[in-house]
């Protein structure tokens, strides 16, 4: 097993004729993902150079291909519409790689998607990969390895760093999920933890958090209240000065809330070991398993 994506995933790439969409459509297909179609309004009826059919709308794409998942690589100003369209077309999962979407757009589109039974990952997410099965996103596939550790992260490249460390040390992953770095995301840390809690294959969960918000504190509370899997964590931003925005909206800390120290403390009090550097993670996880 695994969560969210697997061999049954039939994927539409929204924005497939763009630079990033085109590049990653290839990469995903090369990894073994069933990329069954793409959508670019006005280019319906054509095919990509790899023979993937392009549709004008998600409605057409889902009807013609039986897709159940979409991944979004369109510019920020069109990304919310792409999520609306995907939800309306009835896919169960939308993975939004696009970044820079105004928060106001997200607070409107998320209830719309939920009402239609569509789960949203992201925005500003690197995607989801169930190693050895399917990759939906932009992460390099070759750093992953099939196994029993679930990874949930608010970050992109930092996740790769830690996953790579796990893989090099022989620790495989069930699914690695980047929830996205924005303040408002479709699936948050706690919801992702619940998904892993219900997954038989996952033996332990690695949480990769950062400064800002208090998802990590809530996750620590969830562990204290009896979470069914072993948990290890990493927190980025121990050296970040307060009040400064560190790159994306998630990484900002104001006043005394959401500091790295608060989060590390919350985890430690919940008995969750926290790695001081990415390179320590494999050792910690080995100790848990």
């Amino acid at each position: 097993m695994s969560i969210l994506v697997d061999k049954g995933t039939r994927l539409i790439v929204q924005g497939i004729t763009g630079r990033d969409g085109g590049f990653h459509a290839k990469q995903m297909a090369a990894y073994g993902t069933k990329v069954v179609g793409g959508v670019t309004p006005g280019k319906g009826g054509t095919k990509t150079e790899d023979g993937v059919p392009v549709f004008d709308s998600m409605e057409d794409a889902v009807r013609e291909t039986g897709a159940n998942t979409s991944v979004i690589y369109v510019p920020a100003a069109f990304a919310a519409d792409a999520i609306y369209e995907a939800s309306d077309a009835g896919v169960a999962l939308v993975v939004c790689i696009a970044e820079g979407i105004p928060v106001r757009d997200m607070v409107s589109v998320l209830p719309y998607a939920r009402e239609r039974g569509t789960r949203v990952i992201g925005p500003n997410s690197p995607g989801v990969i169930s190693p050895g099965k399917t990759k939906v996103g932009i992460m390099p596939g070759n750093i992953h390895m099939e196994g029993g550790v679930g990874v949930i992260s608010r970050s992109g490249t930092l996740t790769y760093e830690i996953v790579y460390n796990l893989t090099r040390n022989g620790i495989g992953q069930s699914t690695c999920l980047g929830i996205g770095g924005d303040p408002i995301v479709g699936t948050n840390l706690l919801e992702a933890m619940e998904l892993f809690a219900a997954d038989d294959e996952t033996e332990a969960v690695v949480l990769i958090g950062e400064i800002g918000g208090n998802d990590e504190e809530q996750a620590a509370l969830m562990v204290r209240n009896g979470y069914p899997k072993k948990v290890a964590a990493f927190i980025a931003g121990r050296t970040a000065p307060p009040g400064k925005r560190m790159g994306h909206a998630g990484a900002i800390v104001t006043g005394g809330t959401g500091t790295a120290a608060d989060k590390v403390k919350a985890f430690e009090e919940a008995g969750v070991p926290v790695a001081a550097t990415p390179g320590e993670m494999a050792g910690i996880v080995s100790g848990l398993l």
Partner: protein
Amino acid sequence: MKIHEADARVIFAKYGLPVPPSRLVTKAAEAKGAAEELGCPVVVKAQVLVGGRGKAGGVKLAKDPAEAAEKAKAILGMDIKGLTVEKVLVAKAVDISSEFYVGMLFDRVSRKPLMMISPAGGIDIEEVARSTPEKIMKVVIDPSAGLLPFQVRKMAAFLTGEKEVAKQLGPVFRSLYRAFMEVDASLAEINPLVVSPDGKVWAIDAKINIDDNGLYRHVDMEGLRDDSEEDPGEVEAREADLSFVKLDGNIGCIVNGAGLAMATMDMIKHYGARPANFLDIGGSSNPGKVLSAMKIIVRDKNVKAILINIFGGITRCDDVANGLLQAKKDLDLDIPLVVRLIGTNEEEARKLLEGTELVPAATMDEGVKKAIAIANG
């Protein structure tokens, strides 16, 4: 994006919030004229993009125009938390019989807009949250429904028992919510919202932060940005679509991704050294960005070594390598570069960098340690 109080007041007034009249001035003499025009007493307020102006002496009451000039003179040029005051707002003063806090933000948990109010206004709301949390009410607003009458009743009753005051609060809550949503704010605060002795409600301070991602819908607001209060490197970085924060160490960092960039800084600290900056080149693969990043970093004379830590995903390592080679050539760099490139197209990148004097590193740990050794050596 933070905007000045004076600009936030203009927005608030446009949405019908009861903002006392005011004038923005840059000279003490103008402050006198403004005070005469508005009628005294007036408040003279430093316009800086940082909290705690009052405690720092940046907000003063003046009982007549002469005193307004005097206070303006004292405040103009003042240093508040490292920022120089270049403008002051002269605003008609309001007598205060009670002070409330009213703020709007987005709530991560409900994923909806949230209005936060308190009868303990005029002071730092985070302090209120810590010491007397029962004095804060939070109301989640569903954007599909807007602020609802029952919510307005509940909030008004929390702030006041006086009917005439409560009546004025409904329009204040509604206007603040509308302003917050329509300008794509990430924060909008009235602190304090004041009741004067005659029972009238006034918004005597105004704070709005704009969601940078929403700015493209408000081209008129781009002009409200005040670059003068930012580090020049940060301004230049933003223009090059980079995230940069200057720090005081000696190891420059160029990283892709905010999380990895922070983890890189954390690791430098962990191994006993100090980073010179946070710099995230983001997810795109533009060699020009690497060049811009390099330019910004080398301007800092403290920098003794630069660590490039890239884990390619949507960023392609060969693009980064091309940017580095370009920078090396264009900038005639003499600061050593430690380069760690892994992930998408790493093979192509390795080939591009073969035979150059860049110091390669296979892992993040190795890269950080090599950069520290160079900086210390």
